[in-house]
């Protein structure tokens, strides 16, 4: 998986089917999570992961921070939902139930071909933001410390950490493809 800019202005990369499934899976979860956020629910907005997705704009003025969030949260959430939807649509339809079995270690029943992912400039913008949102959510789950190290060390977290790092690779590849 490495994004390259085409002469037409689009950027493209070949994804392994397992990578497409993975990204589809985590993006669907993100959509679900974002869709469940009620911007009027103070308890929900107090959750650390939501506070990172919708940070306090006024760190020393809770009242102004609340007011800012009241005016911006709906729009920001809508944008994040739209971005994640754009990512999902670029990944194409779910290949079917057997796709979920193709995780590392599981022997694929057949040798699936890489999938071309082609993104317009506008789609790239959605991808960059959704990849960030995904990493912010996973970082919260992994309890990433200020030095970037996950504080959780169980088996499940290792898998999540691999996904977290892979999402960073995808994002960096996209940035280099459009920015160099």
């Amino acid at each position, binding site marked *: 998986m490495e994004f390259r800019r085409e002469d037409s202005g689009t950027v493209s990369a070949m994804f392994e089917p397992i990578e497409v499934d993975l990204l589809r899976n985590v993006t669907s979860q993100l959509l679900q999570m974002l869709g469940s956020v009620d911007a009027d629910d103070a308890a929900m907005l107090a959750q650390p992961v939501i506070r*990172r*997705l*919708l*940070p*306090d*704009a*006024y*760190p*020393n003025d809770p009242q102004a921070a609340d007011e*800012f969030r009241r005016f*911006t949260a709906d*729009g*920001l959430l809508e*944008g*994040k939902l739209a971005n994640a939807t754009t990512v999902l649509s670029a990944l194409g339809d779910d290949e079917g139930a057997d796709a979920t079995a193709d995780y590392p270690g599981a022997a694929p029943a057949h040798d699936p071909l890489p999938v071309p992912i082609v993104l317009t400039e506008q789609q790239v913008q959605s991808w*960059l*933001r959704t990849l*960030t*949102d995904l*990493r*912010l959510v996973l*970082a919260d789950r992994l309890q*990433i*410390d*200020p*030095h*970037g190290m996950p504080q959780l060390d169980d088996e499940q977290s290792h898998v999540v950490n691999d996904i977290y790092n892979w999402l*960073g690779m995808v*994002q*960096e590849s996209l*940035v*280099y493809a*459009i*920015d160099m």
Partner: protein
Amino acid sequence: MPQIEKSTRVREAISLDRPWVTVVWDDPVNLMSYVSYVFRSYFGVTAAEAERLMLQVHNNGRAIVATGDRESMERHVEAMHGYGLWATLDRSEA
């Protein structure tokens, strides 16, 4: 060009009497390349300036990326939140 920008900033500071600032904070999640790209594409600064601001965020924990009236700074902060960056606004200390 930087000369002109600097004098504009000074004038702004005088006329508005402690303007507002947009602050971007260091976070362990966002990639340096991405932060740099955001500064360049959103604020329209040069690659060198974007890199300087990004390194300031990374090394000092925060950087002031814009100065001006409160409304503009709220707009910038909202945009940064859209990019997933950790941004706040505050009164300028100057």
